[in-house]
């Protein structure tokens, strides 16, 4: 412990180096102001963002472990007495950073509609049936290889008020922490070949076509289980770190 010039007691105030997380490439993330998605209009900052150097608070982050998972809820089809309606699917993948490092022990949270395109939520009024056997929420922790796996039901499409005849493509919401505050990500997983994708202003808010495809899961026959469920792979890439001098010399 040392005392700074201002009389503050600061632990470990000597010189040290911190990890640095790489900036996303332009166009990788959607712009906060995206006129096609009307609600962005009053909800995006208008003043220029101020650069926040990555220091201790930014390169660390909550390491939320099993304590928050009071029960195993990576299987969304067994949370009630009966089985939910709809097509059973396995959604799995790897969480890694842009340098290819798996992100182990990180919390993955998901929420989605039921097979009919209805969320279990008090403010949801889409006239499609609720399913008494499906809540549409799940949680998992990645394993040492950064892998996660959910068993769920193919979600449905639903109308929303953004514009005339607006329908969201089927999707599953994902929330991830990674290892650092800089890596926090909330995204949506889409399904390959969904005919609504070209019409969706949220999906199309991402301007880089290759980046956009990162949000579309991949059907996997190899991971489809006979007589039981279809497999969809959804790998998730979080911000990677700048390589240290040592790593660059020994790739």
């Amino acid at each position: 412990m040392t005392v700074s010039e201002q009389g503050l007691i600061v632990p470990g105030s000597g010189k040290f180096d911190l990890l640095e997380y790489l900036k996303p490439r332009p166009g990788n993330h959607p712009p906060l102001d995206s006129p096609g998605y009307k609600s962005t209009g009053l909800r995006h900052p208008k003043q220029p963002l101020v650069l926040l150097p990555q220091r201790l608070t930014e390169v660390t982050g909550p390491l939320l472990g099993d304590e928050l998972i009071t029960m195993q809820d990576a299987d969304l089809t067994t949370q009630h007495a009966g089985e939910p309606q709809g097509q059973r699917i396995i959604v799995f993948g790897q969480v890694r950073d842009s340098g290819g490092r798996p992100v182990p022990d990180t919390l993955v949270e998901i929420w989605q509609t039921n097979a009919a395109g209805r969320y279990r939520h008090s403010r949801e009024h889409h006239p499609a049936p609720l399913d008494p056997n499906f809540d549409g929420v799940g949680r998992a922790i990645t394993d040492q290889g950064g892998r996660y796996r959910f068993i769920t039901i193919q979600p449905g499409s639903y109308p929303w008020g953004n514009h005339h005849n607006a329908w969201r493509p089927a999707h599953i919401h994902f929330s991830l922490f990674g290892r650092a505050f800089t890596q926090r990500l909330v995204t949506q997983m889409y399904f390959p070949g969904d005919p609504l994708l070209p019409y969706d202003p949220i999906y199309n808010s991402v301007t880089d076509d290759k980046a956009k495809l990162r949000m579309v899961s991949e059907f996997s026959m190899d991971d489809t289980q006979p007589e039981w469920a279809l497999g969809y792979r959804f790998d998730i890439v979080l911000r990677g770190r700048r390589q240290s001098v040592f790593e660059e010399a020994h790739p």
Partner: protein
Amino acid sequence: MSELLTPSQTVGPYFSMRLPWPEGPYVVPAGTPGAVTIYGRLYDGAGAAIPDGLIETWQASPDGRFAHPDDPRGPVPDGDLGFRGFGRAPTGHDGTYKIVTLKPGPLPTGDGATEAPHLDVSVFARGMLDRSVTRIYFPDEEAANAVDPVLESVPQRRRATLIAVPAGDNLLRFDIRMQGEDETVFFDL
């Protein structure tokens, strides 16, 4: 060569099915000695409350430590091991949120400067395609705030948007305005 990232998408209107958990707003249990409640309202560009937002906070312990392997200062004292440091609170019908926590300690920057006590904040909502990041600083830290390198980098007239306002015993108010005259300072991380 680095891979493209999975793009961010909006948290949407229905995240409250999953994300909030009962102890989310309590970084420390209510009644913890020294606990401070930070509350405030999230506003859109028309000055209307945002009732479907999510506020997350991340911070050091009162000793200025993180129980995290990437904090290069080494293992934390035992007393800090149980400090979660993370808060999560949805906004209510009137756009208000609340976090109960302990004031973090100041932090070294690694190159000789000192950051004043602060919380990093992520704001999520329907209509936000990516989170907006801001910071909460403390009004009783005038000396530390005056030399905080992040506050110093913010135009003088906007700095006040980052400093919570005293609102009573162990009570601070921190409103978040997405746009307008007093738009909160948001950061490019």
